[in-house]
């Protein structure tokens, strides 16, 4: 194992950047961005996959299944039953038994349903899946998901696709502090600086999609995120000094005391 790996459910990854595959202009643009990101975990919406005809499926046919862990997500699911069903379809279709649970009953704000997310996680863990739940930034829910056997916690930084950055910092800090599994900040990261901030806060990884897909140059933006995640992680490991809202004089008033 290389130093400072991200370990999820016993599997090691050198990259701490996960990427999604939606909203790109073409499968080729998506592939270039994925490569530039250095990501090893790539999420795909199961509803977009044509598992009956994978050769015809643009997204599936350009991604190297040997190189990446393809993580099916259940986006579009309105409740636990649907998410569980989709996860089984993905596994029966030949995908690895890893699933990113997304239960978002409101198609406009796409906020995760905490109750149904927990139910889906409990059932899928029992069914032998490695479950990575997309969740509201709620520290108590994080504890419950961890108790249910979640392999990671994936709290949202802000509304999915919004690019607003981390608006839930206080709650995410608590989640990070109490977690025994990796915390992946997911949703709302619009710029590399947002990703760096998440890593500096102590997140184990981040997931981005829209920020890459709608950039003028998705591959270049993916490279920017890759560097930012590394920078933020490096800074976190370096042990940042305390911050203060007040200036601290380098020649303090009490410096004369022996």
């Amino acid at each position, binding site marked *: 194992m290389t130093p400072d790996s991200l370990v999820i459910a016993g599997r090691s990854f050198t990259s701490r950047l996960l990427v999604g595959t*939606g*909203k*790109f*202009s*073409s*499968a080729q*643009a998506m592939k270039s961005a994925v490569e530039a990101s250095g990501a090893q975990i790539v999420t795909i919406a*199961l*509803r*977009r*996959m*044509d598992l009956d005809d994978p050769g*015809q*499926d*643009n997204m599936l046919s350009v991604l190297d299944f040997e190189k990446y862990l393809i993580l099916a997500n259940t986006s*579009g*699911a*309105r409740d636990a039953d*649907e998410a569980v*069903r*989709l996860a089984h*379809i993905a596994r029966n279709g030949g995908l690895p038994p890893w699933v990113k649970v997304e239960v978002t*009953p*409101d*198609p*406009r704000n796409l906020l995760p349903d905490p109750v149904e997310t927990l139910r889906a996680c409990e059932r899928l863990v029992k069914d032998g899946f490695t479950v990575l739940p997309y969740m509201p930034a709620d520290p108590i829910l994080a504890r419950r998901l961890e108790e249910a056997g979640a392999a990671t916690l994936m709290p949202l930084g802000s509304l999915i*696709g*919004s*690019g607003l950055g981390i608006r839930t910092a206080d709650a995410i800090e608590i989640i990070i502090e109490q977690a025994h599994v990796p915390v992946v900040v997911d949703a709302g990261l619009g710029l590399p600086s947002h990703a760096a901030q998440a890593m500096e806060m102590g997140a184990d990884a981040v997931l981005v999609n*829209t920020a890459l*897909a*709608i950039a003028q140059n998705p591959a270049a933006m993916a490279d920017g995120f890759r560097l930012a995640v590394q920078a933020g992680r490096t800074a976190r490991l370096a042990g940042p000094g305390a911050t203060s809202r007040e200036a601290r004089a380098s020649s303090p008033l009490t410096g004369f005391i022996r």
Partner: protein
Amino acid sequence: MTDLALVLEHAGRPDVVAHLSNSDPKRVVPLLAKKRLDIADLALLLSPGAAPLLEDMARRAAAITRSRFGNAVVLYAPLYISNHCSGNCPYCGFKNTMNIRRVTLSLDQIRKEAAVLRDAGIRHLLLVSGDGPGTETDDLCAIARELKPLFPSISVEVPPLSQPDYARLLSSGVDGVTLYQETYDRCRYHRLHADGPKEDFDFRLDALSRAGAAGMRRLNIGALWGLSDWRADALSLGLHARFLEKECWRSQVLIGMPRLHQVPGDFAIPHPVCDRDFVHIIVALRLFCHDAGIVVSTRERPEFRDNLLALGATQFSAGSKTHPGGYAGDVDGGSQFDIDDCRSAAAVQDALSQKGYDPVLKDWDAGFLC
């Protein structure tokens, strides 16, 4: 009066009507930077005073569309089951006084049509029919069950149904409902549909609410542009979309954009909508409803249609035939309307790719429902 009808009454409020006839662009400018627009704002965006700001509105609409939908464009195709209709809507090619060959496809003929569409790559299917025999809910359920293995998503565009009927369709594998109000102007609606099967304005108006309550995932509303004053209809359409987004919050709301071009025989289009006004409607609705899918059919010509993608359109029909039996070619019933975009589904995909869009054939999975 139903809740929705009450909401739509607001479109007739004197202050809102005054906004709709505003001629001052300066009153529109601040709205371009406003995060969430209300009914008065939408009226101003649709007003003549907004016309000089169309380019600014288009830029804002493009940014919203790109942020919410990225570069993906969902493709679908209609499958006409029947052109029998007891109605006599003067603008429709299926009206009962039209002298066309009437056909209701058998299940076997439907299978052949479906096979052609499946081979063309289509995965999102829209079943269309009038109200003739062979198109009852039981028939539609049987057709949906038959086609479900071939198409991950099946929607219907049929006359309005009861909530239990929508629930039965859902359990047979139908996940979306398309139903256009034609016009939200009650008086004009009644004049156009007097004494026919579409006579009941409110039963039609509330159909999508019933479909949403039954659990349908996609609710596609619309007005038929050309029948009535477009500014007033677009205002009501926006209110309808907002109402459904609030009341049927688990469903995706889509806005269809059918526009009358050619019409049968002696009917003159009462309020023709030019290209510029058509674009005005799309960008105003995008500014008002950030998350609504906007559907543009093959009624529009190819180049014009493709240019609408940047402004707000998110879904296209492709390779469409608008008469029963049109795909397999072994039956030839009369058409509902002439199409202006005759490209094949493959040609539409190529054109979209060249313009930097990802043509999405599958954006739904049967596993959600079964």
